[in-house]
């Protein structure tokens, strides 16, 4: 069921959460197991009532199934939520999250966990695309590589490009070392993803290692290939510096 809702294996712990030392805490139960556990704790009468109610629901609409069977509702084209983190949970406004990571960065925090909390902060970036009537926000922390990001962007903006693949073509970081390859890419494809980094420079996505990109990216813009040609020399230079 959880994969149908993108919930993944929810980590239910019966001991104190976060207390790695305790054996119970480290054990993680899947959702189905927990349901079984719960039903056992209720009286048989309760269980029967619940099951009857559930049956009635099932009769009314076939789509409401027993919890364990809900995997059939999975949308195959949805990108997998690769982490336990879910969008918008816990329900704290994003400006609160970013302020707290600001504290960690500054080292103004008195808590030992200050450093580690930085990594779990969501970082929502605006993504705009030339010619698209709306922009989007992506949480870069949801992805582990350029590949995953490119799939997500394709899904968001795919309807605006003739060749849906061109967005992902630009994303394999290693290929950028070769100048002629870069120029080929820009000439061939309609759209190229670019981003603005902390210094205010506009760069081609894929230049730098993924981690560095996540930390330095302020916002994304999917540009027309012809507009992005001016960025190529800078991109190559940064490549040479980092490689």
């Amino acid at each position, binding site marked *: 069921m959880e994969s149908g809702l993108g919930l993944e294996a*929810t980590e239910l712990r*019966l001991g104190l959460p976060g207390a790695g030392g305790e054996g119970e805490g480290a054990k993680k139960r899947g959702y189905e197991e927990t349901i079984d556990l719960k039903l056992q704790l209720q009286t048989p009468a309760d269980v029967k009532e619940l099951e009857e109610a559930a049956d009635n629901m099932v009769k009314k609409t076939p*789509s409401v199934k027993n919890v364990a069977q809900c995997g059939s509702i999975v949308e195959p084209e949805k990108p997998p939520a690769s982490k336990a983190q879910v969008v918008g949970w816990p329900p704290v406004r994003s400006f609160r999250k970013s302020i707290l990571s600001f504290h960690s960065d500054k080292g103004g925090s*008195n808590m030992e966990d200050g450093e580690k909390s930085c990594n779990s902060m969501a970082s929502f970036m605006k993504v705009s695309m030339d010619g698209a009537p709306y922009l989007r*926000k992506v949480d870069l922390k949801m992805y582990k590589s350029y590949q995953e990001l490119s799939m997500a962007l394709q899904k968001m903006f795919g309807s605006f490009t003739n060749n849906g693949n061109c967005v992902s073509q630009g994303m394999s970081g290693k290929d950028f070392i070769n100048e002629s390859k870069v120029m080929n890419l820009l000439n061939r494809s309609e759209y190229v993803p670019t981003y603005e980094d902390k210094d205010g420079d506009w760069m081609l996505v894929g230049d730098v290692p993924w981690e560095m990109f996540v930390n330095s990216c302020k916002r994304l813009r999917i540009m027309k290939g012809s507009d992005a040609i001016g960025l190529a020399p800078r991109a190559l230079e940064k490549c040479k510096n980092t490689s």
Partner: protein
Amino acid sequence: MAEGGDGEGEEEEERSCALGFGTGGDDGAGCSGSPAPAARMRSGSCGGKEQPPPFSEQVLENVLESVLEFLTCRRDRNAASLVCRSWYRAEAQTRREVFIGNCYAVSPGRTVARFRSARAMVLKGRPRFDDFNLVPPGWGARFSPWATAMTAAYPWFERVCLKRITVSDADLALLARSFPSFRDLTLICCDGFGTTGLAAVAELCRNLRVLDLIESDVEEEDEDEDEQVVDWISRFPETITCLESLSFECVNCPVNFAALEALVARSPSLRRLRVNEHVSVSQLRRLMERAPQLTHLGIGSFDSGSADAGAGDLDVTDMESSFAASKSLVCLSGFRVLDPTYLPAIFPACANLVSLNLSYAVFTAEQLKPVIVQCHNLQTFWVLDTIGDDGLRSVATNCKKLSELRVFPMDASEDSEGFVSDSGLVAISEGCPNLRSILYFCQRMTNAAVVTMSKNCPDLAVFRLCIMGRRRPDRLTSQPMDEGFGAIVMNCKKLTRLAISGLLTDRVFEYIANHGRSVRTLSVAFSGDSDLSLKHLFQGCPNLKKLEIRDSPFGDAGLLFGVCHFYNMRFLWMSSCMPSLRGCKEVARRLPHLVVEVIGDSPQDLHGDAVDKLYLYRSLAGPREDAPPFVKIL
């Protein structure tokens, strides 16, 4: 403390649509049939097309108008407007403040046609889950059509308050140009505008009293990057101003401090000033000197690192003298950057403080204690969980008048350590019996603690508990959290707003349905077992107006239970649940005055039968025309 989105003010405001939708307005008992909306439609649509009433009736109406002038409460006005046609007209003529809880529930034209004498408007747009990035950008809720209608109809308009609305610079300029009497502009969780719009307001609104930007996304540069940041503070008139409140905490770019200081100096009525983090502590000191009459102060940076180079190190005693001089301070907020060793500077103000917001600052219980020990009059307190249960105990010991408490997580993730727990909650309940509103983020909670709070704090109107780990059971008993929340709805008879979390079965919804007579707003996440939950809710809660659900196993069957209730509600939001397109279409078919929106992250999402995000709301305006391609209206 106008700190933002989900304050208590919302509870008082929460009522059925201003235009008397549904059953006789506000006592919606059980299900409303369709006749009621139709009746509203008839009387509502008349506008200017009616025959003018006979003379005798006109006299009566004039008398009535004089009487109705005194009615300020929205709820009362809605009721009055339903008495008869004459009362409806009189009420419409005398309503000064119009509250629109959902900008798509009614068209601007219709609103303006009915309430011809309005001077103030409160307009709310996007659903609350937009704050957590669940509503894709570009979904809607634009101010432009409203601005156009209002500027055409209301030459003497004075006050506008917008929440979760997209306002453009052009809209702001239009307001500023068109309303010579304009005095109050409050933008909460809004976006779409930048410093250009602010400059227009500052420059053209000569009678501006309130400019409050709260948790809004103020753009720093234009899309085409030609426009730089505008120095909007300098655009205020050079003369003495009538400014009473200026809040710009959420503006990310620095403002011209010299201009700000001069503005404060020539604003003798200024009572509320909330600056952003770019205002250093020494600059703050100068502002406080200029405005010793301040009652509400929002502090930017409060650490030595931000002191101007020329000013040297500002020490705590210097700041303390500033706070001693500001004798009227009752509300402190901000502290966007805080050096905890500077906290003692606020000691002189503590005894008078009614409201204190430290929720952007990281510090420990030990650092809090010297401050909180003096805050005997504190009624509203917002803080980070880093103070721990120990810090909460200090609060409980010292703040006997505490009415609203919000404990935010420093690390808002499911795996974080979490510094507060059930014992902090119990301590608060024992120390603060007058508690009316609580928002509490934690990692560990027990049913017993929640039950204790329900008994110690019977006046609770808002109970929002967020156990950050999804579906986490009672820490001690491993039971679901049903009993705890059940006790809350049973014992807190005034409860109007509830947010539930932790491991929850259908039973908690049964409790809410049976005991939550006054519950108007309910937030559900990762809860319940089956559609039985929704059956309970829709058949049980007579006052349920706003229901937001995410990631819960509810589908078409549950949705259909709501058909008898949706006209009584402002909206239902369901995301990552299990409704299907077929089920949603069925709801739309049965309720013609309901707008049923299926929302995807991209247009492709809308092709399948599964519905990821569902947002439905009653509306007199019908399906909106500005829906983007990733929204399908059924």
